[in-house]
């Protein structure tokens, strides 16, 4: 049985991936890192993460495609997804939510805010 919540970080920039990975690990999460959209979907299928933090601009499949794939598959539909992107235009953010994101954080990001948002999304939801 897994005690720590598992978070998949889909991020092609290794520096950001290491930062986010270390940040979330510091807060007790079990972190997996995927460096492109395809890898993210493979890991989502194999490792059953509790939450996904995903960049938008990634090789092979961008964040929107990953989101669409996740939301169209009943296995992943309930997994909360936080978009972490440099794209800060209103239309990008709105599109992210329309595609099924649960939250959107703009880079450069406030680390503690990201952790707070992740924790909030992982809280058991009351009816």
């Amino acid at each position, binding site marked *: 049985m897994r005690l720590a919540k598992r978070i998949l970080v889909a991020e092609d920039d290794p*520096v*950001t991936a*290491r*930062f986010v990975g*270390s*940040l979330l690990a*510091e807060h007790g999460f079990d972190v997996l890192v995927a460096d492109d959209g395809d890898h993210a979907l493979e890991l989502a299928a194999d490792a059953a993460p509790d939450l996904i933090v995903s960049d938008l601009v990634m090789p092979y499949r961008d964040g929107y495609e990953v989101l669409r794939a996740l939301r169209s598959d009943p296995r992943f539909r309930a997994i909360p997804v936080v978009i972490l992107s440099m794209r800060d235009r209103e239309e990008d953010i709105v599109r992210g939510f329309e595609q099924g994101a649960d939250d959107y954080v703009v*880079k*450069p*990001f*406030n*680390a*503690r*805010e990201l952790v707070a948002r992740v924790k909030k999304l992982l809280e058991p939801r009351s009816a």
Partner: protein
Amino acid sequence: MQRVLVVAILAVAIAFLALTIGIVAGKAWREIRDARRRRRRNALEPIVLGFAHGDAPSILPALGGGVARRDRPVLEAILLDHVQRVRGVERDRLGRILDELGFVESYFAGLSSPRWWIRARAAEHLGLARAKRATPHLLRALDDDSYDVRLRAAKAVAAAGGTAAVAPLAKALSEPNRFSTIRIADILAGMGHPVVRELVDVFPHLTRHGKLAVLDILGRIHPPEAVPWLHERLQEPHRDLRARAAHAIGAIGATASAGVLRAALEDPDWPVRAMAAKGLGRLHDEEAIPQLCAAMRDREWWVRANAGEALRRIGPPGIAALENMLDDEDRYAQHQACLVLESAGVLERRVVELVTPGPAGERAAVLVQRFIRMGQTARLCELAATHRDPVVRGTIARLLPLSGAPQEVAR
């Protein structure tokens, strides 16, 4: 002769060999150095990130009390990589490491380098470190001979210096020969509300070029507290200053500005009238509709275009006014109204109502007749040929031939 030839060939061969050995040795050295740096990075990065995520007062104990000279470039690269990607407390803590480990001091020294690229890099890194004590050094670098150094110092001073940086940056707006006004304006606009007071204070001392930039920056920051001051700027003697002030007022969008913008719509200079019209549209000021209709008859195209767009932005009452403008005596106003109604999709929406019985259908028919009377039938002909609803197509086609529209389209 043969001996000379042999010696020459040998010399060339030895030179090539030495060159090859030099290249291979250099490459090997770089590979070894990079491999070591990667190894050290893997070892040091978790320590740096652990410090950033935690609350320890100093990183030195985690680094064993100090940093080996060979590890300094690795640590610096780690810190500069991460400090650009985060905000808030973690960013401050990463900046603190740059200061604690002496990198900030080395950047101060770099600012005095005779090589401009070293000075530029030092200024950039000081901006990333955001060390408050760097501000005086960076302010001096604003007078550097190199444009690149000045610009990077300007960005850095904005990042590190807070409001202390505003006055020198605002003064730089007046020096378009030494600074790019657009870049400096971007930097100041990016600093947001804290710069407003300083910009207002420095305004009287700036050149017209600088004053225009300040008004532009305020229009981008949207500070409601600057609205009364901007109203006063509508009395500036130069028309460009009044126009830019009107633009900023419209961008801020305070409803209290409606009266002054309506007055500015009567300004003797057309750029001011054009910006006032645009602003009134942003305010959705219905009281301005009669004046905007009058502005549709302005002799300047820009004023007419902005007035038409403003009426569209005001919503249904503005659209109704635009429809009435199709019967105006002024041909230019008619034409502008027609353009706005077409481009805003009003005509397209209205023709659907042609088939609706009652007032909506009658209103649509009136609008179509107005377009036809003006001879503006190109879009109607298109709709008669391509509208998805055959009933609508037929209705438009029946209206068109009566006014002499091309038969092949109206069939």
